[in-house]
């Protein structure tokens, strides 16, 4: 396989891993926002799978005032 490495490098550099992740997250979170809210409202945490395979657990942040009570 003969590849023009300069072109390959340029095409890879045109995308940003962070920007791609932001786009993916926006799409997934918007699509599952009702389920997230529903799950969090019932006192559970919601686990979301990111397209790269990682899983994030979303929960309600315990406010400092609540924590002391």
């Amino acid at each position, binding site marked *: *396989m003969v*590849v023009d*490495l*300069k072109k*390959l*490098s340029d095409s*890879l*550099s045109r*995308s940003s*891993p*962070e920007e*791609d*992740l*932001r786009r993916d*997250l*926006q799409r997934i*979170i918007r*699509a*599952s926002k009702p389920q*997230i809210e529903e*799950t*969090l409202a019932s006192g*559970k*945490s*919601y*686990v*979301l*799978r*990111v*397209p*790269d*395979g*990682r*899983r*994030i*657990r*979303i*929960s*309600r*942040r*315990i406010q400092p005032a609540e924590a002391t009570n």
Partner: protein
Amino acid sequence: MIALVTTCFLIFYILVPGVLFRFLSSWFVPLKLFERTRTQEATFAVAVALLPFAAALFGVWNLPIMRHLPFPIVEGTYSERRQDYRRVATLLSSSDASRLLLASPSAASTSPSTSPLLSQSPGDANWRSLNRVLRRQGRFLAWYFTFVAIEGICFGLLAKRYGDWQSDPARHRVPLWFIRTFILPNISEWHLLLTSFNWPTKEKVDVSIDILQNDGLLYQGRVSDYFIGSDGKLTGILLENVNRFDREAFHEAQKARTPCTSDPSTSDPCSSDPEQPISSAIFWKPIPGSRFYIGQGSIANLNVRFVARDQTLISLAEKILDAEDANTYEVVVESEDEAANSQHPDIYS
């Protein structure tokens, strides 16, 4: 004898520098490998060796330390040096070199000689010339190989900084031009695709890959390592944190989404909400084990994704979730063990 000398010349002056350069630069970046013809191999070796050769030549002629070390000899005049090389050339081109090396004083010229060099027997003189020439060449080769090694290390180190410099091209215009012109064309394309070579080190980018196999199985994981054959082709990929997509279950779930019945007497008119797309996330099954090798023969398709580090994922997710409610959500990235142990990866209580 001439054939032997030519072979030695090719080995020590062209092939060894090429191998040395490739070996040392490969500590930092794998070079492009492919089966070259002898001409291509020689061209590569000459191109690599040109600069170190010139530097070594200049050094052994002009610089104080390099002129004498290693293999020190008493350097004669220019004409004596020429005579040494002439004698050695005569020896090498002779059909009977042993006769010249073992020649007795009687075989020497009958004319009286004034020079001490010429007063000795021709055999002795030939031996001494051979010794001096070998020492000179040994000294030159020592410095030549040293410069080739330095060149190889510099090549690798420069290539390693490519990602960092590329993030700020205006500031590093000259080194980037050098790398893109001379170094990048010699690096394996798989190194660009399967490592974070192209990205700044501080971003800590990982490579996630989806591999569709010839048998239809789909795997996803982080690239841990990759292997290249002697012809430069990918032979396999080592993955970690691997998940396999359960396609059968996914199709079953899709089939199960039967259209809703219009019969009002039915208590559950739809087996699932047909408007709601089936999330593919639950069909990714973690594969136990830390390393998973997939050979090139079974790979039909690759989808390479460069992924930002966990901290970036958390902050982005929190930012998107908290778009309306400030500081309401807490996000953590699950470890792979947690995900693998879970039978219900979507919702945890």
